[in-house]
């Protein structure tokens, strides 16, 4: 027998052994858009993954791939993970929507969970958090705190989730400060610290003294700290290393309970395709501690707003509201339905500029 024959046999035996071993464990995979150390979006998803490991111990094995670009390359990464024997795969960025569906069609026995998307399949669920509820609280604080009345907003991609956040923050800033103006910069990236810092700097140089961000790294916080006299909010993660200033509060994504529940469902065999969209009330969206840089009265107002949203007493999109072009959207007292919110592609009245296509 030649050496290569021996090696092939050995490899085969090893392969069989690992397959047998893998069948005992439930394998859960995660696809990340940034590095796990981004300090924001991906960091929080990975915290959820670690919570799954801690909760299930040896019963579950988790794997992840970080910095997977959105688009064609994502399909390859997700396919690889399915081929490695993952039973459940969380793809954690909007741009993975089509790749996830494409791979799911090829692996009907694998369960897929796509974050922030809107397309499902028998083996594809979607899940997201109502970040716009947190944006409402942010907008309130921003509107009350700004002295220049210019609020800078670093947006990522023109997708409904980002547009919802801008609208929600604007509505609540405007409510407490009619003179407020939003300057919006589209960075066209989720994660590029240098570009995010450049965007923050550009906004600050043009007079913004509050920076809101919908990108994943803490770079805008660092840029704001360097400039001085500017306040920011943690995005996706608490970013408390920049508290009490410039970071005065944050929106925290809490994925752990969802990840644990869905993994349990796969283990039990009760997994079904669902569309989950939870907010502050269910604990999927958290508001990070409001730092002492915020005066007590503003902090109390913000917390009252947060509680009202959590209890369902206040919906961030409550009429009367008009669209940017002046047409009517919501009558007085009317609240937006989830369908409109999920597909939101317009600014509310008062925001200047156009949404890129």
């Amino acid at each position: 027998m030649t050496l290569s024959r021996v090696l092939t046999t050995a490899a085969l035996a090893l392969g069989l052994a690992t397959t047998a071993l893998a069948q005992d464990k439930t394998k859960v995979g995660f696809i990340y858009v940034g590095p796990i150390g981004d300090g924001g979006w991906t960091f929080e998803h990975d915290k959820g993954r670690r919570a799954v490991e801690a909760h299930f111990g040896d019963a579950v094995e988790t794997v992840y791939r970080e910095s997977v670009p959105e688009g064609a390359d994502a399909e390859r990464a997700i396919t690889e993970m399915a081929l490695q024997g993952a039973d459940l795969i969380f793809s954690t960025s909007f741009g993975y929507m089509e790749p996830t569906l494409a791979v799911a069609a090829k692996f009907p026995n694998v369960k897929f969970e796509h974050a922030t998307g809107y397309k499902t399949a028998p083996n594809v669920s979607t899940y997201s958090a109502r970040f716009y509820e947190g944006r409402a609280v942010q907008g309130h604080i921003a509107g009350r705190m700004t002295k220049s009345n210019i609020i800078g907003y670093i947006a990522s991609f023109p997708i409904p989730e980002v547009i919802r956040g801008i609208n929600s923050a604007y509505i609540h800033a405007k409510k407490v400060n009619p003179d407020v103006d939003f300057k919006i910069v589209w960075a066209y990236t989720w994660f590029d610290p240098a570009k995010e810092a450049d965007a923050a700097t550009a906004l600050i140089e043009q007079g913004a003294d509050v920076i809101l961000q919908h990108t994943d790294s803490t770079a805008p916080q660092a840029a704001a700290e360097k400039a001085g006299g500017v306040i920011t909010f943690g995005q996706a993660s608490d970013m408390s290393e920049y508290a009490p200033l410039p970071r005065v509060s944050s929106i925290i994504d809490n994925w752990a309970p969802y990840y644990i529940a869905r993994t349990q469902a796969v283990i039990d065999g009760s997994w079904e395709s669902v569309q989950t969209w939870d907010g502050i009330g269910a604990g999927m969206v958290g508001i990070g501690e409001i730092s002492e840089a915020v005066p007590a009265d503003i902090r109390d107002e913000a917390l009252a707003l947060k509680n009202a949203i959590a209890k369902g007493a206040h919906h961030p999109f409550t009429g009367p509201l008009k669209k940017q072009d002046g047409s009517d959207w919501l009558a007085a007292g009317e609240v937006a339905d989830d369908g409109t919110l999920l597909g939101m592609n317009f600014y509310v009245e008062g925001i200047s500029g156009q949404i890129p296509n």
Partner: protein
Amino acid sequence: MMLFGSIDPALLLASLMVASTPILLAALGELVVERAGVLNLGVEGMMITGAICGFAMAVNSGSPALGFVAAAAGGAGLALLFALLTQFALANQVASGLALTLFGLGLSALLGQGYVGLKPPATIRLNIPLLSDIPFLGRVLFSHDLMVYLGLVLVALVWAVLKYSRAGLILRAVGENHEAAHALGYKVVRIRVLAILFGGACAGLGGAYISLIRVPQWTEGMTAGAGWIALALVVFASWKAGRVLLGAWLFGGVTVLQLNLQAAGLAIPVEYLSMSPYLITILVLVIMARDKSRAPGSLGRVFYATQ
């Protein structure tokens, strides 16, 4: 003076210098490497390694200057690995370079674990009496950190050395035809190793410029493709130092400009603004490259000495 309502041109030009310095440094280093006939695709890996080495040293010592020294050393250290692989083990340069990038990204993530959320000591900006106080020009030309000027000095040095000095002539000879250079008695491998180390040090400095000045913080993967931009810049600049400077300014400048135009609410569709840095840089450099500039003759080819 204000443009489009709220853009201050002095601040804009100052930001341009900051945004272009990292890719300028990295591209200059790679230019020298490629002129010596070696293609090192590991620029991104060397940059990110420099970013964390510089950051860690600056935080621990409290001195940004020491940080930059460490960044250069870190970048050169990683480049040494590439030199060992390609010049002594005669490994494929493309594969080694790609591996170097992956290795650098992983290594930097490991080294940086204790440094997330820390603040580096501030790098002081130059303040020359009289000169820095000139309205407009003072802010644009005479109020930067030393690294900006170092980048400009390096452009002049690389250009002059390559064009006028004997050392530059030998380096180019090695890059154009390594067999001929070897036959003339030049130490091809030694010259290439030195060029590779220089390239690594420059990439390291560029990376540290991002982590110590432009952002300033440490985040995993924070170079986010700047190394690849630098690589592309060398090609589009036809392996000429002056054009690398122009390309870096264009790219950095248009990047910052388009963000400022967006913030100012200029009525140009954001899609166009967003792709403009790539388009304009490539367009200008391609038009300039109509003269018959071409890649160094031995670029990327493995050399081993025959007796």
